[in-house]
């Protein structure tokens, strides 16, 4: 078994048994980066080195929205070209403190503001399962890096599915914890109220290990959650009797047939063995949630991205004659089309009292409604099981975030697992839990993962590692 392509747990256990050293692990992953160009990385971290700690020698990729001290950080935007942060994102510091080796910064759509990786401006990223197919976005580079064995895990921002969608397309585990569980300090964002720092890895246990290192209150992030998590890895074990919500009606109407069938087969085959009681629920608010999420993201983006004005750092328009020209040309030349469109939309809905009432306030009301709907749902079920994406990679007819966005609106923990292949491309299943219930979520995901045995199906198809 080659080192590149191993899970985090396998790497740690192999090192412990003395089968290979942290340096060999790093070398193996760097070799894979050189050998297999999927366009995952925007730049490598020259100083990557493993240290002692619970993640000793684990090669981790960071989305380029994560600030790394001394290493250029652009969030995939021309407007930040050449920006080298003089500070470290809290999560980057925590990873290094735990001994992980940050190998490089991965590609994403500009500021993570599109789920369509084709919108990325800093190069094309391939889906390792099928070159020429999208890996999904916004964290397409992070997912491609892990799927191609160039990193054992990755960390990136998720505002509506940016980690889970590419995880689903690339046959990986993608996870977002409760809002505020992992510090957002130093993560370049566009829509802070929706941003949950997400994790990508091969196995649920890898996620538990990473989360243990990254979770915790950060005095530099006012929205970070107080309190500590229980020992998640110790908790991942025996299957628990759970009430699992499914909404076949909604899934059928949004998802393509083969995706739905894969999911249906999965819950029919596994529920009984896992001790799960399936509870049919209704999710009539999915499209409302999708629109509300979109409007809130645009509104917050129009404000959060205002700082890129060419005055202090990043791209600056040349030969501007005055302040207005400096601002408008810097932003016109520095931002790409998608970002400009979102900023315009956000400015429109916040920039006038009538628009504010009609769109932003309505979106906030819808968000509250979605929040209440989740509260109601948790009276009936312990977890909700959905397809992660409505379609396979590259189909692009339905909003890919239709099933992933609603958890961001309420800051809920969610996880996507690979559950099968259709046409040689991975299909993902998503589990969503009430806020604060990462333990329940990871236990159930670990049990389900064991039933699926995706690794052997992978050997039958696809070339991703």
């Amino acid at each position: 078994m080659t080192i590149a392509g191993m899970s985090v747990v396998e790497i740690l256990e192999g090192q412990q048994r003395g089968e290979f050293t942290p340096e060999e692990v790093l070398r193996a992953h760097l070799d894979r980066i050189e050998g297999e160009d999927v366009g995952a990385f925007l730049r490598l971290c020259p100083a990557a080195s493993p240290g002692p700690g619970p993640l000793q020698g684990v090669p981790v990729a960071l989305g380029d929205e994560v600030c790394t001290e001394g290493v250029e950080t652009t969030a995939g935007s021309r407007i930040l070209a050449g920006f080298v942060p003089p500070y470290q994102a809290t999560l980057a510091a925590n990873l290094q403190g735990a001994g992980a080796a940050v190998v490089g910064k991965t590609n994403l759509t500009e500021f993570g503001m599109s789920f369509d990786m084709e919108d990325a401006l800093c190069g094309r990223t391939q889906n390792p399962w099928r070159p020429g197919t999208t890996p999904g976005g916004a964290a397409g580079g992070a997912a491609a890096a892990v799927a191609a064995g160039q990193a054992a895990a990755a960390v990136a921002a998720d505002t509506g599915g940016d980690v889970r969608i590419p995880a689903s397309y690339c046959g990986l585990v993608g996870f977002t914890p409760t809002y505020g569980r992992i510090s957002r300090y130093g993560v370049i964002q566009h829509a802070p109220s929706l941003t949950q720092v997400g994790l990508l890895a091969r196995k649920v246990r890898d996620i538990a290990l990473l989360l243990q290192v990254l979770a915790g209150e950060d005095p530099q992030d006012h929205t970070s959650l107080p309190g500590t998590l229980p020992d998640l890895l110790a908790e991942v074990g025996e299957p628990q009797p759970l009430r699992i919500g499914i909404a076949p009606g909604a899934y059928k109407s949004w998802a393509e047939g083969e995706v739905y069938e894969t999911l249906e087969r999965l819950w029919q085959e596994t529920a009984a063995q896992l001790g799960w009681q399936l509870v049919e629920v209704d999710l009539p608010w999915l499209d409302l949630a999708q629109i509300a999420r979109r409007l809130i993201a645009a509104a917050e983006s129009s404000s959060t991205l205002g700082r890129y004005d060419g005055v202090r750092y990043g791209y600056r328009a040349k030969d501007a004659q005055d302040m207005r020209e400096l601002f408008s040309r810097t932003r016109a030349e520095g931002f790409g089309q998608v970002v400009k469109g979102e900023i315009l939309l956000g400015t429109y809905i916040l920039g006038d009292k009538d628009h504010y009432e009609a769109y932003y306030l309505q979106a906030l009301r819808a968000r509250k409604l979605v929040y209440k709907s989740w509260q109601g749902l948790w009276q009936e079920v312990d977890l909700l099981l959905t397809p992660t994406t409505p379609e396979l990679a590259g189909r692009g007819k339905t909003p890919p975030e239709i099933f992933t966005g609603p958890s961001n609106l309420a800051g809920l923990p969610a996880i996507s697992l690979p559950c099968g292949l259709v046409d040689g491309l991975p299909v993902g299943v998503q589990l969503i839990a009430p806020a604060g219930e990462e333990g329940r979520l990871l236990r159930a995901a670990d049990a389900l993962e064991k039933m699926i045995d995706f690794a052997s199906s992978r050997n039958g198809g696809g070339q991703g590692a």
Partner: protein
Amino acid sequence: MHDFEAVIGLEIHVELSTASKIFCSCPTTFGAEVNTQCCPVCLGLPGTLPALNRKALEYTVKAGLALNCQIARHTWFDRKNYFYPDLPKAYQVSQQDAPLCVNGYLEIPVGDSGTKKVGINRVHLEEEVGKSLHAGETIIDAVYSLLDYNRAGIPLIEIVTQPDIRSAEEAQTFLESLRNILRYIEISDCKMQEGSLRCDANISLRPKGSTAFGTKTEIKNLNSFRAVRRALEYEIKRQAGLLRDGLPVEPETRHWDEQKGVTVAMRSKEQTSFYRLFADPDLVPIDLSAEWIQQMERELPELPGARRERFIDEYGLPEYDARVLTAAKEMADFFEEVVKGYNDPKTVSNWIMTEILRYVKEQGEEAEGIPLPPASLVELLQLIEGGIINRNQAKEIVLPEMVASGKAPRQIVKEKGLEQISDTSQLEGVVASVLEANPDVVQDYLGGKEKVMGFLVGQVLKETKGKANPRLVNEMIREKLKQ
């Protein structure tokens, strides 16, 4: 001819004197070298987030309590979005819909002994922006502009009054009272010349007796209390002139030109923009418990009004003295310290209100405080009481020297050789020769003209170069002429 009444409301910005900024740990010291007190957070670098300084919250709530406001139990911050180079994030974190403090008032003195309540509409907390220096008149026609972000992120409160102020003088009194109370509770140094207290004024006129509001103008660039008063006086005259001539008052922002003593319409303002305000998602809403608010109230020091009443009760001072002494915290503190060492409150009060206040006023309206330590005044008063120097010497010679050099009064008396001669044996000869040299005056005195005593004492003082103890000389002459 109409008789007009002015309707004035003030908007005051006050920088809080917290040790660190509102969302990061940068210091807030005034006058540091440019761009040395900033960090990734207050520069709004990508990915950085605000961490709320609890002290800023406490100070704002204390200001609200001192101004008799209701304190919001649930509040949050909003983003006020606009583009300007000194605004690092392109939005200012402020409070629009949920100010921390609302519906208060400040009682100010009017006339000789009256008071009046000026309503406080709101007090809210926000962050300070950076400072721009333009090589040109405005940023638009400047050749270049320089930016200093030291100020960016200093906690700032905005205090908005109700339109309850009726004259320029009242506006000045209000500001003085406000400054005093904020200094009492030690939340700001309130220095207008350093910009830690800034004021804009809204003013309109209406016919006396009317309750409707006229068209208002907003006056900016008011850099001192005097400027506030003068600008409002000017604006009242200007608006009254327009109205008398049947001309409209334009609703506009006007700039106070200190040199020329006039307000001028500012270059046509940018179209008044909606600031795209919305709740800042990076800061969680704040819930304040009744217990915490009570705790803040308990931590408030004695406020000027209560202290004034106590000065009357405890020290037996007249109302007027109590009001003057408590009009500045430093002065009231000074008074109480001096009385501890020299227990004659009225004498101390007289000295402070006449002599000390003169030196304070010489420093201008933003006096840093009393120019001598309380112990020095105690010593000076003891020197007078002990007959070592007389009152005139104390006022004319010793006190000015104390203020100028900071030396102790006893030392000054010694250096200048001012000790009074209170030893009768040293004065016997002088008294005898003065009486001998003025037989006519002595006759007048013996004939019942008591008034001439002053002349005789004066002669003795002249002979002793003012060092003779006048009371003692008086007694000696009286004694001698009895015989």
